[in-house]
């Protein structure tokens, strides 16, 4: 594939969903089925187009192309390398599944004519973030996605949702301003904000540190990093489940992605190591991991628990990033994938449970495994992966992260990972064990001494096949990409780490 | 350097008119105005003396008005020649001010009449 084709494809990938948004809004007037089909089709097209970039990436291709000059020396440009590709492919994949899931899930909901266009628009903005060729475009798409995602969060329009949404919006704007500040400082120091020039800042300076902290605030806010995570546990539970899955699975990762870019394309790795700025991130990441896990324990609402779990999992990625060696970066990148699969599965499964039974409290989930075996099975699989049980992908990423920590001579981090895994076990197992091994509430009285009756009551109330298929595919991914380290995702992660640490070459 | 002070006093005086209570306000305003007058008096003392032919204001501008005025404009009344010929645009502005003043008064009175 030549360069021009790739550039055109990238532009199409970003603009197609954005162009489809008004089309969807228009189509809504005529037919719901057409709208749903079109939304899924758009997501699928985006996914396939993204996958078609793979041969180019496999050959080690990197593209940096300016599209439109918005100000002198400041342009909207696109950049493609292995990191962009990995995340773009991942996000469009999860988006496709969530769109499929939404068809049935949202059928009972109000205001679908708002939901689908926004869902597809955020996909475009998200791909835009991953393909952004300079910090300014990154910032533009980042803001675009964050602001529009607000509509997804407050979809229910309840008092609670509006409050959470307002918190989210204020935090987003603070983060956006911090990013703006950071981008401006980088522009001032380097005269450019392009990601294609290798490294922009390679000397330690006060201004550089300010910019670094601004980026930490801006992207860390999105990634749910410790002092800035406050919006996350409120915002994720109130959104419709497919939207929560996307928020947790993909949109949080845009923050992590931004930090990857900042670490490797804006500041030089040597500068970060010598000045010790990465320690700031490491400390915050450790706090994030422990705090997220610990607070998750105390939550009884399943979606809230999952949201706190997201915070701690994002901590892993940031921790891996702060260690700055090959294994740690591999682990961090791989964990982006793992967490996307695991957390999307969990949120979608939780959504299916809520949709079918209305149960949100984890203590009421006894015996649910009998009612919804597939959903609960997938849920358990993903939860086990979260804990880090060996054949699943969560184990692989934690293992690699731990290796990285040991390589860097920081065994303390391994301890943090272990504690967090233990905490994960403590809050996931009490959901899945009673779900399979206890009887549903309300049945307990009646089944005393009457075993046959119990058999009668064992009836399956599963969600619809479309929803189940989305959940199952994601759950399968947690196994497929965890069984051996010789899977495509893991090798992509290794290549990414190699590319990033090698300073732009494989 | 202390002339920046004048500026701040002026600004402060205006500001006070709207934030402080009435009695305090009038007293403070008088003090402030006194201060402003005091500082202005330095500027007045420094002004070029009135009617001195070496003043900067007596340069080629009034010279031409006085000498070439009648021949260039045909008016022996120099004031007329300045306001309606040399600087006629200002006079057009003044005529517009009159027009606008009437328009403002008529419009305001008409709309508030009933």
């Amino acid at each position, binding site marked *: 594939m030549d360069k021009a084709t790739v550039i055109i494809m990238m532009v199409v990938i970003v603009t197609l969903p954005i162009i489809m948004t008004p089309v969807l809004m228009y189509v809504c007037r005529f037919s719901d089925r057409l709208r749903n089909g079109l939304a899924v089709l758009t997501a699928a097209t985006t996914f396939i187009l993204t996958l078609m970039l793979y041969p180019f990436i496999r050959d080690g291709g990197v593209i940096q192309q300016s599209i439109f000059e918005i100000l002198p020396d400041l342009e909207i440009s696109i950049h493609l390398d292995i990191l962009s590709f990995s995340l773009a492919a991942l996000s469009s994949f999860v988006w496709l599944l969530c769109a499929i899931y939404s068809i049935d899930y949202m059928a009972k909901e109000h205001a679908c004519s708002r939901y689908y266009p926004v869902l597809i628009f955020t996909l475009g903005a998200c791909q835009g973030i991953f393909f952004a060729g300079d910090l300014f475009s990154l910032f533009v798409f980042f*803001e675009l996605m964050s602001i529009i995602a607000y509509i997804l969060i407050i979809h229910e*329009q309840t008092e609670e949702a509006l409050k959470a949404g307002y918190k989210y919006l*204020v935090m987003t704007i603070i983060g956006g301003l911090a990013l703006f500040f950071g981008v401006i400082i980088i522009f001032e120091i380097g005269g450019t904000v392009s990601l294609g020039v290798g490294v922009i800042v390679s000397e330690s300076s006060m*201004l550089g540190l300010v910019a670094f902290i601004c980026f930490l605030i801006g992207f860390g806010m999105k990634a749910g990093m410790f002092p800035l995570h406050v919006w996350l546990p409120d915002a994720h539970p109130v959104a419709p489940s497919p939207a929560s899955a996307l928020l947790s699975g993909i949109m949080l990762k845009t923050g992590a992605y931004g930090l990857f870019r900042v670490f490797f394309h804006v500041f030089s790795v040597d500068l970060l190591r010598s000045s010790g700025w990465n320690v700031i991130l490491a400390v915050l990441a450790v706090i994030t991991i422990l705090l997220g896990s610990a607070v998750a324990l105390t939550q009884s609402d399943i979606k809230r628990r999952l949201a706190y779990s997201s915070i701690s999992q994002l901590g892993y990625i940031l921790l891996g990033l702060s260690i700055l060696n090959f294994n740690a970066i591999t682990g961090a990148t791989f964990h982006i994938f793992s967490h996307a699969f695991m957390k999307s599965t969990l949120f979608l499964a939780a959504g299916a449970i809520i949709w079918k039974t209305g149960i949100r409290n984890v203590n009421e989930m006894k015996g649910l495994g009998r009612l919804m075996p597939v959903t609960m099975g997938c849920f358990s699989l993903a939860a086990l992966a979260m804990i880090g049980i060996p054949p699943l992908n969560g184990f692989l990423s934690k293992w690699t992260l731990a290796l990285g920590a040991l390589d860097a001579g920081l065994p303390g981090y391994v301890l943090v990972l272990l504690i967090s895994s233990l905490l994960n076990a403590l809050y996931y197992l009490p959901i899945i064990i009673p779900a399979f091994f206890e009887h549903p509430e309300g049945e307990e009285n009646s089944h005393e001494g009457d075993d046959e009756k119990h058999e009668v009551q064992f009836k399956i109330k599963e969600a619809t096949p479309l929803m189940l298929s989305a959940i199952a595919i994601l759950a399968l991914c947690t196994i497929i990409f965890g069984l051996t380290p010789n899977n495509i995702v893991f090798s992509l992660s290794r290549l990414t780490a190699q590319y990033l640490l090698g300073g732009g070459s494989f | 350097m202390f002339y920046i002070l004048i*500026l701040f006093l002026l600004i402060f005086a205006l500001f006070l008119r709207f934030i402080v209570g009435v009695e305090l306000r009038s007293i403070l305003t008088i003090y402030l105005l006194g201060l402003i007058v005091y500082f202005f008096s330095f500027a007045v003392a420094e002004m070029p003396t009135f009617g001195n032919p070496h003043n900067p204001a007596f340069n080629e501008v009034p010279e031409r008005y006085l000498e070439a005025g009648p021949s260039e404009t045909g008016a022996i009344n120099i004031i007329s020649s300045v306001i309606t010929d040399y600087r006629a645009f200002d006079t057009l502005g003044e005529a517009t001010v009159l027009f*606008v003043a009437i328009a403002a008064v008529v419009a*305001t009175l*008409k709309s508030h009449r009933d």
Partner: protein
Amino acid sequence: MESAGHQPVLIIVLLLISAFIAPLLYRRWRFLSGAVVLAALTGSFITALLLLSKSGASSSLSYHLGNWPPPWGIELIIDPLRVYMLLVVTGVSLWIFIYALGDLKHELHNDVIGWYYSLYAVLVASMSAITLTNDLFNLFVLMEICAITACAIITIKDQRECLEAGFKYLIMSAMGTGCFLLGVAMIYMVTGYLNYSFIQSELSLALTDYPLNIFTAAALFIVAFGTKAALFPLHVWLPDAHAAAPSPSSAMLSGLVIKIYAFALFMIFYRVFPRSLLDTIPLNEIILWLGAMGVMFGSIYAMLQTDLKKMLAYSSISQIAFIFMGIGLDQPLALTGGLYHIMVHAFTKSTLFMSAGAIIYSTGVRRISDLGGIGKVLPLPLFAFTIGSASMIGLPGTGGLISKWYLALGTLETGRILFLLVILASSLLNAIYYMPIVINAFMSGEEFKEKVKIVPLSMQVTLAAGMILVVISGIFSRQVIIFFEQALTSLY
């Protein structure tokens, strides 16, 4: 300098003539009166566009009124920055006028609409002349016209608070004009000239002989323009005046009138005062600090308001202070930001006032807390409001980001991060008071209960145009910025 043809003066005269005949026509043919002013506004906008193509980005042309060369007669100058400002003035006023054609019928008595058209045309003429003139006394005369007309388009509305607000405005701005006249007299006394360029070369000599007079004049100028442009502690007249006025007047006053004085101050600083004067006394520093305070306090006051138009008025105080910060930083990038903000804010605030006007027109609701769910019944005005708020906050894709970007670069270039923080903090505050309105209007799930009138077509068209302008100023800004870069090189 070559001659400029008659376009610059034709812009002014065309508007004046249309203003003079509009009230006469209004007695017989109501429709014609508006059409004449509309035609004059369109004509002046087109003429301004012609001037732009004529002058280009670096040359400057001069027009001698009455064929008298500069120190004797009055001179109009057409340089890139003035042409830019002229375009903003004529373009935005044309746009607001089309809106006014629809809105005025319900805001004003039928008898006075003709007078309103006339006043409006004179206001635009005086503002165009203020941008073009190169003569201090002429500037004074034009400021007088501008002050009276601006006041009249407030008091023309049949409400008591309009009279009060207009009176307050008249007093304050008469005082400003008085200060200005005193300053002009002092400058004339020590230099003997009224023409900007002649004063500039003469002032550096006079600075040694009459420093106190010149300093006092500078202080008076700052007070004069500060009052008129609502620089922070002198802003007290603005909120009442802008909130009480009919909506097209509010859009005009907030969008253009206060900016024209900021532009005039900019001209005084860089075209009248020599560099040595600015180096001797830190006038820029004063403007910068007052601007920074205005940015913060304007936003904070705006947060406390319950009336929609009053909130917008306070927000204007903070936005005009951005322009003053651009002047105060005294640095090409910051000036670029400040000057660009003149245009951006003209578009944005006019759009916001227009949408507020449309809301009041069709529902009569002014209180912010009563706007829940209004987005469903008035989608277009509220959508325009949303875009305008986004630009106020400085979200990407709107003009607000571009001007903030350049202002921020300017603060970094001069190494004053404190002011960058001020800019960011104000953006955040803007978000805090604009966002809830938008959210409440679209997302709250409440039903809007009041009766709703249909918004006239001319208002809908102008609102849509406003949204497009705000977005265009955020995306296709490159040419304008390059234009500024070339134009500002002449200042340094």
